[in-house]
């Protein structure tokens, strides 16, 4: 899978480009020569058994973990291995965690305000005043995530599904180029799951998205290209039907 090393224009290169990435913790290879790339505007689902390296891959992309070797480029030219989490976030990569992490002692609205795209400097925050545009944006996201009614409630008081949505809403507020969504439907009811799939598809219309998910039902509903990770590298890639027929994938999931 050799991508041309230096295409002429940044826009032509894939949005996210991982090549030969490896990382190990105390001798355990969490990611092993992983290569993967994502086109602009694409939504990709990542599946794989526990310990396949899905979360570690997210950690590498977002700067939480530094790879031992390999290249990670974003938007053609940005070497993500050289930057830390806040820098990568401001480049335009948003992340939703497996376990919903919202600011529980803030209201739903304030959570979105925190996430809202804009300056991140300390003094800028001190003198920040809510503009009409920002207020409108927040209201819009509240609509999209169906949280308008709970606008002034503390995030701590939301249900599990609502927290997941709030987090997705925070991602939207960040307005990133790439969204990394880790298990968005874990612990959701069927109705909520469907609702989430709808939400993600809506988001994917104008964002690039990587979704990590166990729930095959949900992945099928998304109807996007699937990469199956196993032992830290891509085992199989293609449509869900293609991947689920791959004998190696079947072996990994069922065999042994």
């Amino acid at each position: 899978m050799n991508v041309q090393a230096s295409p002429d224009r940044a826009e032509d290169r894939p949005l996210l480009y991982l090549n030969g990435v490896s990382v190990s913790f105390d001798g355990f290879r969490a990611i092993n020569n992983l290569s993967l790339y994502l086109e602009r505007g694409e939504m990709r689902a990542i599946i794989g058994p526990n310990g396949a390296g899905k979360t570690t891959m997210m950690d590498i992309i977002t700067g939480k973990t530094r790879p031992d070797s390999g290249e990670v480029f974003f938007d053609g030219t940005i070497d993500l291995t050289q930057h830390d989490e806040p820098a990568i976030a401001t480049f335009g990569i948003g992340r939703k965690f497996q376990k919903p992490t919202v600011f529980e002692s803030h209201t739903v609205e304030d959570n979105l305000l925190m996430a809202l795209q804009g300056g991140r400097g300390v003094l800028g925050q001190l003198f920040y005043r809510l503009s009409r545009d920002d207020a409108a944006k927040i209201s819009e996201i509240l609509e999209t995530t169906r949280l308008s009614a709970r606008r002034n409630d503390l995030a701590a008081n939301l249900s599990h599904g609502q927290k997941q949505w709030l987090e997705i809403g925070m991602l939207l507020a960040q307005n990133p180029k790439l969204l990394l969504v880790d298990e968005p439907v874990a612990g959701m009811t069927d109705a909520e799951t469907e609702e989430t799939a709808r939400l993600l598809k809506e988001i994917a219309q104008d964002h690039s998205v990587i979704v990590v998910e166990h729930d095959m039902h949900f992945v099928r509903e998304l109807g996007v290209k699937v990469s199956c990770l196993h032992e830290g590298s891509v085992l199989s890639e293609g449509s869900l039907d293609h991947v689920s027929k791959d004998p190696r994938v079947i072996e990994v999931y069922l065999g042994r």
Partner: protein
Amino acid sequence: MTVDRAIARCVAGFAFLLMSLIAAFAQEETIPPGSPAIDLLRQLPEGSFRERGEVIGALADTGEVALVPILRALEAGSLFVVTETGQIVTTQADGDGVIATDVATGEEIGALASSAVEQIRVNNLIRREVRTAVSQLTLMSPNPARRIAAARDMYASANADSVETLDAALAAEDDDAVRAVMEEVRAVAILRSDASLEEFEAAVSTIVARGGSQSIGILQGALSTASEELQPTIQAGIAAIERNLALWNVAQNIWYGLSLGSVLLLAAIGLAITFGVMGVINMAHGEMVMLGAYTTFVVQQVIRTSYPELFDWSLAIALPLAFVVTGIVGIAIERGVIRFLYGRPLETLLATWGISLILQQSIRTIFGASNREVGNPSWMSGAFQFGGLSITNNRLWIIVFSLVVFAVLLFVMKKTALGLQMRAVTQNRRMASSMGIRTPFVDAMTFGLGSGIAGLAGVALSQISNVSPNLGQTYIIDSFMVVVFGGVGNLWGTLVGAMTLGVFNKFLEPYTGAVLAKVLVLVAIILFIQKRPRGLFALKGRAVEA
């Protein structure tokens, strides 16, 4: 200098001590009747100074040790001759007259008129002869301790004339310890003579082997008078001694450092359990140490008043008691306070600080605010020399003790069921609980163990520091520094951390003074934690990130 030589000298030094004791009983010696010395003594006042000098030499050749005080009296000008009888006497003023004592027999002659005795005159020639004679006589003394002392006395005065005396003494000498000293003195003497080049070089190397700052002085003295061609030899010798001294100095610093490190280890090792393994910030840890020290005090009080003969056993009795007392207090604290605060480390910190205040004040109320006297059993006091190191017994025992405690703790954690359960509970409480481990019991036991060890530390620290209600406060910050520096959750880290900090501290002290050294160590640790927030022996990986 080689270590075994150093050991030989230690042994010699020890033997010397012993023999000086014996010598004290054998002090009263008289000249046996019929000895040629008696006749020679009578010749002392007669003839020219030169002739009398020869008499003194002859006296020395008789080997009568009892002559030594007489010769000293002569040198001091307090030897007289009774003009009528020619008896040699010492005198004591008595009214107008004197009371004379015959030096040859030690008998009192009785009162005489002052004019009846005449002082035996001495000049520098006589004095020199006397000194040589005294050296010769004492060097021949049957008492090895005396011989060593005599040889040592010659360090300052040794010169070309002493070489002969020493050679004679060496020829007769069969005690190795005495020989060693004599040879050194002989070397000094040769340096001050115009001996041949070979002899001179041999002498320098003997002195270099002896080492010590005194030897540098001797060599420097020789340097000023020595000929051109000898200069390099001597200078090389001085350099060698200085190197050697520097080396011993480093060793001494390491020793002090290890000693401090062992104290830190003792104070911190209980914390390595409660903080390192359980993750509980116990600010009352220092007070557990203090309770251990006060337990020792109480034990000694009881022994002093009721069983004084047991005093040497006081520490052995205090150890298990301190462990039990502080262990129980620890369990009480865990059950009473800390268990409500698991998962809230900052609150735990504050609550245990409150407990520490209460414990301090309780002790202050019971025992008073001032320092309490805790005695050292006989085997804990005293010191000895090991080569260039001076080692005090209490420090040595504390190092040994700290290592034993460490080893036992390591064993408990790694090899016993309790240790296994402790580690299981700290790694995954829910899982351990569902596997049938009684987690509250294990928590209490772990905390009790950590506190009990603090109590043991208190027993040891009572031997070297003031036992006061503030004892714990002195150690608490240091203990935390050690654990954090070594890496939380790692006993070996605590050991290495304690020793490193101890040695580092002691190496800084000569340059900066004790207080600034400590400040610098603290600053260094603060900077170190910035660099490696998880300490020296940090666990790595995803699990830690949470």
